[in-house]
């Protein structure tokens, strides 16, 4: 990318990022930053992380072309980066293994984590079991109910799961509680933050641990198609899977980077988590970024069918990419996401996480708009068909209960809208801003 550099000073992305934390945590953040830099310069550490990614996570994971799904996306070619096939079922493990190894390197014996969908909590509990660390996971009470399967998984792995009932009892409150734990126990505890938010060095460090997603996908796609994608689509909660796949494409100016936020019931309803549609610059949880807040700077409640996207702020580097125009962000409603969820399941035999379904809905939207601009759907033998890369950040096992309810499958009814879904409009029109 030409133009401004993202990091004029460490931890700053233009006007965003920084370290807005209690003084008590500054020493731990400095220690972490130093340990991380030293580790990345240590060939043994890098080799150990590579080995775990290969032998434990199962990297590189495949790049899957999904032609039956793509018929609904204007006939563009659609490729999925299969983070859902990683051990533990999502991209979260990439960052977790890196930070868990750092924890051991710093001589700490306990990790704590926040979790929304439970995927980061499961990944953290997994790494803690693998490396013999104590583990406590904070999870909003509302989320423990909608992601009950993952609560059981974490407990099976030996982690303590603490339901958080304060505030809105979702992800942001779990982070508050994790911070309170950390400030009390920081001497032996590492806060294994699960996304590209929070104080420096988390946004940069977590991005770098996830950049393997984009590096692999870029190479796989070049090998398969001989070209770069026209667009890269990712869902954006805190923004880690999106930063991971965006980052290696940042200098490929012809590649559009598209982030999809939780549109919930629609931005106009006020029940959503679309920071770039309804938020303003502010500070939350240690970083300056876009924040959903009221006239007094109080954090607003959010809504999304997906626990992993239900968060009122977003990683500071996304705020920078948004303001600089390098990446574009748009909301996807619950309904659109669930339609894409059903569509991928039915056309390709892949059940996505509801978070990832937001990216899939975005890909359908983009494919159709490209087709419309070209005067109609692309032919299957058109060698110049656009290529869309989607980060399939996780698998849908954890969401089967939510989906069964949504589609009325609980009492053995069939997917009532199945035919309608296959028909003309599997994914509703974008609200407001189209691509």
């Amino acid at each position, binding site marked *: 990318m030409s133009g401004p550099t993202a990091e004029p000073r460490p931890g700053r992305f233009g006007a965003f990022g*920084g*370290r*807005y*934390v*209690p*003084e*008590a*945590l*500054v*020493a*731990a953040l400095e220690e972490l930053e130093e340990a991380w830099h030293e580790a990345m310069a240590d060939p043994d550490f890098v080799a150990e992380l590579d080995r775990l990614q290969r032998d434990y996570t199962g990297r590189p994971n495949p790049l899957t072309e999904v032609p039956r799904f793509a018929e609904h996306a204007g006939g563009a070619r659609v490729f999925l980066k299969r983070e859902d096939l990683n051990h533990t079922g999502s991209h979260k493990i990439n960052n977790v293994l890196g930070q868990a190894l750092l924890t051991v390197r710093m001589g700490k014996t306990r990790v704590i984590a926040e979790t929304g969908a439970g995927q980061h909590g499961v990944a953290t509990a997994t790494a803690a079991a693998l490396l013999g660390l104590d583990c406590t996971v904070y999870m909003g009470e509302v989320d423990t109910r909608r992601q009950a399967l993952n609560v059981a998984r974490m407990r099976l792995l030996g982690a303590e799961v603490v339901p958080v009932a*304060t*505030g809105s009892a979702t992800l*942001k*409150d779990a*982070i*508050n509680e994790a*911070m*309170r734990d950390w*400030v*009390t*126990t*920081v*001497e032996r505890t590492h806060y294994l933050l699960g996304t590209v938010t929070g104080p420096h060095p988390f946004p940069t460090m977590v991005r770098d641990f996830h950049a393997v997603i984009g590096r692999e996908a870029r190479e796989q796609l070049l090998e398969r198609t001989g070209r770069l994608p026209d667009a890269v689509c990712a869902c954006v909660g805190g923004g880690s899977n999106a930063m991971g796949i965006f980052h290696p494409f940042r200098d490929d100016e012809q590649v559009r980077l598209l982030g999809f936020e939780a549109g919930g019931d629609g931005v106009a309803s006020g029940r959503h988590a679309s920071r770039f549609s309804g938020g*303003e610059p*502010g*500070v*939350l*949880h*240690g970083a300056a970024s876009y*924040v959903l*807040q009221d*006239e*007094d*700077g*109080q*954090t607003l409640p959010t809504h999304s069918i997906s626990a992993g996207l239900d968060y009122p702020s977003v990683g500071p580097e996304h705020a920078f990419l948004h303001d600089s125009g390098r990446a574009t962000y748009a909301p996807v409603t619950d309904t659109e996401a669930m339609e894409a969820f059903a569509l991928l399941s039915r056309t390709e035999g892949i059940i996505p996480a509801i978070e990832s379904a937001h990216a899939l809905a975005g890909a359908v939207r983009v494919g159709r708009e490209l087709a419309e601009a070209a005067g109609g759907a692309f032919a299957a033998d058109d060698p110049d068909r656009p290529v869309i890369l989607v980060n399939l950040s996780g698998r849908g096992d954890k969401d089967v209960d939510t989906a069964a309810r949504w589609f009325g499958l609980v009492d053995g009814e069939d997917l009532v809208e199945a035919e309608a879904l296959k028909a003309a409009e599997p994914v509703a029109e974008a609200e407001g801003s189209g691509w």
Partner: protein
Amino acid sequence: MSALSEVFDRCRAEGRAALVGYLPAGFPDLETSLAAVRVLAEAGADVVEVGVPYTDPLMDGPVIERAASRALAGGFRLPQVFDLVRAVREAGAVPVVMSYWNPVLHYGPERFAADLAAAGGAGMITPDLVPDEADAWLEAARAHDLDPVFLVAPSSTDARLRSTTQACRGFVYVASTMGVTGTRTTVGGSAATLVERVRAVTDLPLCVGLGVSDGAQAAEVAAFADGVIVGSALVRAVDEDPTLEGLRAVTADLAAGVRR
């Protein structure tokens, strides 16, 4: 000379530590919180910290967290904090505001400083804003003659103790234990050790907080600190007795403690 410097000089002349009391604005409702800060001032607090309720108070334990939630649920609006500041000033104590950064950032640091100064506020304590990120606030505070008060913690390196206290005016908030706000049965030896480390790098008055709940503990801390900060114990007293007689009694006990 700032109002804070004056009050610490006076206390020193009287051979005692200052009592610094914290109460959140709007808890349990605006009227009661206005009455409560007056009681606090009348019963012997030298400095009153008016807390801005915030949705995500990650430095606070359950007592203050719940109080903030109730204040917000009760319709607290940010400008009301200036009404409390005025009430404290009228009751004869020195008012400072304690706020997480985002409400002030959103209001506008310059505008907040102007309104705080106009209401008679002496400064602001910022629990999640370290001097490294505070350029905008330091500039606004300087322009309106407000004292910026930052925290130091047991984990602060000597280099950070030096740079942080250099950015402070009025006093230094010494967070004596690693942890969130809330009462503790012992305030611990770590407080005295930290005070000693901070004394080595600054001449500013040092106020110790996090955990003090009664006169005996206040006396213990007053032996080595210039000010004793009390929060959760006062909030609990307001919560348990809306007539505020409990608050008056707790404050009087603490005020006696700093004079022991």
